[in-house]
């Protein structure tokens, strides 16, 4: 595929993205791009559309309008291979969504074998490598129902990594966790960020947004209000709405 559209280090470029659920407009024309190695935090109050934006990016929700470019090709074009595209974007969910009928190891191997058509031995090796990275190698025989929330989420991250994606999408990865377990998952995500993986993280963890990401996007009522460095967003927000949100989020304890 040729790069007809943008410079080489843009992974995803979104133009005028819209999403309606019936009459309700959730996304009202989003323009947004992600470059290689960037860690972007999407913040904003509940209902601001950040999770919907993330789900639109890998087409779990089909956009009502706009364009999504992956390496310069519009993925909403008819005939574009959506499954291949999704395989290149890993996703980690708030509720983990591990395959309940599979063991930890099989959770990581399934996509490699079925989607990437990788042979069993290689898939196993790759899975073990990433399970070790998230500290879950000891549990390869366990079923998801036997794991704690934090362990499940680490396996889910290993499952996404096992596909060796070009970018990872995190949808509130720690929101369903006990406070005690947030740390273990956040540490894994931070290590990934430090390793240079491209990531988009929808999060309510302001600490993470501030310290780990190199860009913070603030969303409000279906539009992007601010898109800037963490320093600028947290120290000098431009919009009143951003100020309100941050002061409420940071002073909640």
């Amino acid at each position, binding site marked *: 595929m040729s790069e007809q559209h943008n410079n080489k280090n843009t992974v995803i470029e979104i133009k005028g993205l819209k999403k309606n659920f019936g009459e309700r407009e959730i996304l009202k024309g989003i323009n947004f791009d992600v470059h290689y190695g960037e860690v972007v935090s999407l913040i904003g109050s509940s209902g601001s559309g950040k999770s919907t934006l993330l789900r639109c990016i*890998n087409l*779990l929700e*089909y956009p009502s309008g706009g364009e999504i470019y992956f390496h310069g090709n519009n993925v909403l074009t008819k005939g574009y291979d959506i*499954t*291949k*595209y*999704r*395989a*290149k*974007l*890993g*996703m980690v*969910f708030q*509720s*983990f*969504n*591990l*395959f*309940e*009928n*599979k*063991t930890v190891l099989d959770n990581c191997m*399934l*996509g490699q074998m*079925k*989607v*990437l058509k990788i042979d069993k031995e290689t898939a196993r090796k790759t899975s073990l490598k990433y399970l070790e990275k998230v500290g879950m*190698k*000891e*549990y*390869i*025989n*366990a*079923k998801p*129902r*036997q*794991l*704690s929330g934090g362990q499940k989420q680490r396996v*889910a991250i290993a*499952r*996404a990594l096992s*596909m060796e994606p070009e970018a990872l999408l995190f949808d509130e990865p720690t929101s369903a966790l006990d406070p005690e377990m947030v740390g273990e998952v956040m540490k894994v995500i931070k290590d990934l960020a430090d390793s240079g993986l491209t990531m988009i993280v929808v999060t309510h963890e302001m600490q993470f947004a501030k310290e780990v990401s190199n860009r913070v996007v603030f969303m409000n009522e279906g539009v992007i209000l601010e898109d800037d460095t963490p320093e600028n967003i947290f120290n000098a927000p431009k919009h009143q709405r951003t100020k309100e949100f941050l002061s409420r989020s940071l002073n909640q304890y």
Partner: protein
Amino acid sequence: MESKTFWDWVSVILDQYWPMFLQGAGVTMLIAMVGTILGFIIGLIVASIRTIPVRPQDHQVKKAVMSVVNFLIAVYVEVFRGTPMMVQAMIVYYGLMEAFNIDLAPLTAAFLIVSINTGAYMAEIVRGGIDSVDDGQFDAAHAIGMTHWQTMFNVVLPQAIRNILPAIGNEFVINIKDTSVLNVISVSELFFVTKTVKGIALRTFETFFIAGIVYLVLTFTVTRILRYIEKKMDGSDSYTIMSSSTMPENGLKIKGGFENR
């Protein structure tokens, strides 16, 4: 001769006609088993077709085909759930004979009718099973690039089938009993055989008492076997901690888990 008790008659009838009861029970079990398995396969196919997503961006032809197929499925389910199997048996058996000149063997007709009838119920049961699987499972499978059918076969259906096993067992038990209506098309299942024995022995109460016991034994046995299979399918509640220094066989066994079930 004139002073035989109830139990005397039972033992006389059993003594003389037990091979017939045994054969009838065999035919009943055969029909129930084939009907349940084929019905389950029909239900699986029908319910899976119903899950094919139709999105606004899909081609017009696909949308049209899917709405026709879904309509036919709805008709099938409604008709076969909404009429008695006895009536279906008469219509299929004699209907095929008179309208199309197809002379089915009663046993073949029995397989056909019970399978189609069970399929209509199974379609709804499987649909319930698929609905019981969390949406997140679909999301996760789609997010790693799996197609609809890969998702169904590898992730959703295994979970759905486990969830509906009790209902499938229920259908099996119902089928064992309901094959009795097939006597209207002269299938030599247990009820038909019992009627024959009654005609020879001229004892109604005792003969049907025996048949009742045989039915009970059949259904009870099947229920226990299915319960056992369910337990097996749930697998062990323990798992082995693998560490790089220990071999799997001497790894640490963990009993249970966070959700002990």
